[in-house]
């Protein structure tokens, strides 16, 4: 009830206007939404590509952060970034309990991710990506990331 009221308001706002590079793909219910983002400037790493994001909301959203991952299909790759694992899991303090603030919303998360990509120059995966992708069975919200790098 808490989450749906807020998500309802967010949705009506998203349907009215959105910042450049962000599109609402699907929001049929108040538990899972799909958004597309692309990088608006000329960063060659991401030029011409569109990335798909899956948002999952718990009933305590926005007190608790949503779970946000990149999803992959033929038209939507996983962007290269030293904080994005090749299975789409994102290591960003904003999405962690410690860094999350209930004031954030779907739009502000999309903007943060856009700018995270825009400022990146490295075509890299996080260290230990292969092992993480192979062995991780946890959901993103249960992983305790160590945010050691505040540069990118």
């Amino acid at each position, binding site marked *: 009830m*808490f989450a749906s*009221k*807020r998500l309802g*308001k967010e949705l009506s706002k998203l349907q009215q206007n959105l910042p450049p590079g962000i599109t609402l793909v699907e929001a049929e219910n108040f538990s899972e939404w799909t958004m597309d983002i692309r990088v608006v400037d000329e960063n060659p790493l991401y030029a011409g590509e569109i990335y798909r994001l899956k948002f999952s909301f718990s009933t*305590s959203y926005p007190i608790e952060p949503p779970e946000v991952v990149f999803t992959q299909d033929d038209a939507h790759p996983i962007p290269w970034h030293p904080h994005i694992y090749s299975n789409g899991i994102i290591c960003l303090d904003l999405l962690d*309990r410690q860094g999350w*603030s*209930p*004031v954030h919303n779907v739009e502000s998360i999309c903007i943060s991710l856009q700018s995270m990509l825009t400022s990146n120059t490295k075509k890299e995966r996080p260290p230990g990506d292969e092992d993480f992708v192979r062995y991780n069975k946890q959901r993103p919200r249960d992983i305790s990331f160590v945010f050691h790098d505040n540069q990118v």
Partner: protein
Amino acid sequence: MDSDDDFNSSQMSDEDIMGDQDSDVSVEDGLPPAQSMDQDDVGFESQDKDIMPSKHAFDVDFTVYSPQQIQAYQDKQIEDVSSILGQPPEATAILLRHLRWNKERLIDQYMEKTEDILESAGLGETAQTHPPRLEKVAGFVCDICCEDDANQDTFAMKCEHRFCVDCYKQYLSTKIKDEGEAARIRCPGDGCNRVVDSKSLDLLVGEDIKDRYQVLLTRTYVDDKENLRWCPAPNCIYALQCGVKDKDLLQIVPTVHCECGHDFCFGCSLNDHQPAPCALVKKWLKKCEDDSETANWISANTKECPKCNSTIEKNGGCNHMTCRKCRNEFCWMCMGVWSEHGTSWYNCNRFEEKSGTEARDAQAKSRQSLERYLHYYNRYANHEQSAKLDKDIYLKTEKKMTALQTTTGMSWIEVQFLDAASQALQQCRQTLKWTYAFAYYLARNNATEIFEDNQKDLEMAVENLSEMFEKPIDQLQGLKVEMLDKTAYCTKRRIILLDDTAENLKSGNWEFNVSLS
């Protein structure tokens, strides 16, 4: 559970020193002399007894506190510091927690750079005096729920990040109930580091959450202090204070005794493991976890190749063995080289031959270390098992004693000797168990002989007492005096053993065959 183990009795003084990090409680002084059973001792050789100091070498000073006492003590500290700093108590609490209750450091830092410390503790500019309150603000839209009802109550701390009361409540209860956060709950505003103080919290949440908040704060307080530790017994509410520091743990085994009756080591929170120091206990438990079962099986079922020492299991077939690794051919029975077997193949009767003897010697050596370990492990495990059995027997006896009380007219107090005996047995077996782990790591020197004698004496005393528990119930009544004597003797032997080991540990007389650090 037991009031009888006088040598562990705690000194319950309420004027406390628990907050004073600097008061270095020495492990030498403290406890009042234990009125032990020295006096009614059943006359055995005077070993050390006459020159023994009134306090035992293995005793450490400690105090037991209830959560209420801990909270009261926190409140008192907050009040004291609050008046010095001129900050309201709820802000002072945040400052104290920020500096892990180091008053002196807080006051120094506060005097030097007030702004900085307020900022890093999550308080922002100097606290204004008007108390936190709920407000209705015209034209307000809550950033969390997007509600814009002009009539809703809103709240903001001094950072002026304003949200509706419902959202603030929801936020706080999620933090406290689900995340177990208390000391550092920040303002819900993005990037705001302001910490929610207890006064604001009181205004916003219900009693159950307030209680939980206090419990969490007290927990943080105990966790923050090096000289405080929760009793690890299930459902126990007490915390204990002891001045023994981590660096002392190679010289002392700080066993403390909680109000709930649980004896544990202040250094590592494990059950009482005297006389073995924490570092050995850790090594031993690790070793047992890794080795014991496997080692047992290896010992029983395998031999090593006399040439390359590979471990071989013979799971069928004849005595003619060919090592898969080094292709050495040997006889499983005598371990001698197979080619020397001549014509007596498959029927080994050549035990005295040289090559066989040598091979067996080498094998014996490699087995020796395993056997040595198993020797100590079996005795360790045996005492653990026996302690359980003793307890079972006692529980059965207890039932019968209740019956006996009604038939023979013995009073409840008259059957308490069984309880005392059982407690003593448990405690002595616990000690004995750890003497074997201790002995496993002990390198032989002058002191070890006395230790082994003490161990033997205690073991005999314990087995004697344990045996009496197995006597039929109708005989127990007549054995009361003897049983009391034996109980006292066991306790006495335990004290002697622990005194000797603790004394030597303190003065560094033990040599270990492993490094403790």
